[in-house]
């Protein structure tokens, strides 16, 4: 068993455990922290799957951006209500059963497929500079989705700002 494989299973286990913990978490704040753990673990897995640029983006955008925003949100709501955010559960049994059934179905589906072994492809991909290629691809083949994404971000930014602002309801 080589080092990458150990790392791989480590990250996998970390993500899975954090996910399970998330299921039982009763505090939103803890939930958010657990999600950060999962995201970071996934970033590690991305590196192992030769997607360094995605992994960096995952850490920067998700762990650094979204989660910060979410924690802000949590703190804002708890400040407004003045009591700690304790999460109740609804439909715990049927929800869990559906989730498990879903998982079972997916596992069954995955198990039915045979995938090519990753060793045959691993060698060729080591010489491959993913980040540069991604950068070129973004500005050439994917320029249209890229620009569209920019517009989407702008819209989301404005939308979020307008909706979250206090006197929005008065202006609209």
């Amino acid at each position, binding site marked *: 068993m080589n080092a990458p494989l150990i790392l791989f299973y480590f990250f996998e286990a970390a993500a899975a455990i954090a996910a399970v913990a*998330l299921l039982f978490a009763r505090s939103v704040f803890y939930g958010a922290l657990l999600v950060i753990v999962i995201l970071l673990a*996934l970033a590690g897995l991305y590196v192992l*799957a030769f997607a360094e640029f995605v992994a960096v983006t995952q850490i920067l955008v998700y762990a650094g951006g979204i989660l910060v925003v979410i924690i802000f949100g949590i703190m804002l709501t708890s400040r407004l209500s003045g009591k700690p955010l304790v999460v109740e559960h609804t439909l715990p049994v049927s929800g869990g059963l559906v989730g498990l059934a879903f998982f079972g179905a997916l596992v069954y589906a995955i198990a039915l497929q045979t995938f090519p072994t990753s060793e045959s492809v691993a060698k060729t991909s080591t010489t491959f500079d993913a980040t540069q290629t991604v950068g070129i691809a973004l500005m050439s083949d994917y320029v249209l989705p890229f620009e569209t994404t920019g517009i989407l971000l702008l819209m989301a930014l404005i939308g979020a700002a307008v909706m979250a602002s206090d006197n929005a309801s008065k202006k609209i």
Partner: protein
Amino acid sequence: MAPVHHFLYLGAFLFSTGLIVIITKRNTIMVLLGLELMLNASNLNLVAFNSLHPGSLQGQMFALFVIVVAVCEAAVGLAIVLRVYRQYRTSVPDHVNELNQ
């Protein structure tokens, strides 16, 4: 290098977990977190499949765009949550049932 289907099993697990979170948690922010979890599960799959085709970048690209969309979704979602919270003084999604009235 780990077999691809291990990635997939983890993705399936995370996805199912996200689903359960969405269904069972009585807090909107937690639901958002569940959503993020599901998005990440799909991202994981995309990256894993991309690793099977080293010459191409489509999977990674898709993952990148998913991340961007997730950003937007999270930002707008949180804004909604705040708005709803101000309006209804609750963050329990079931309490927001005005359309049902």
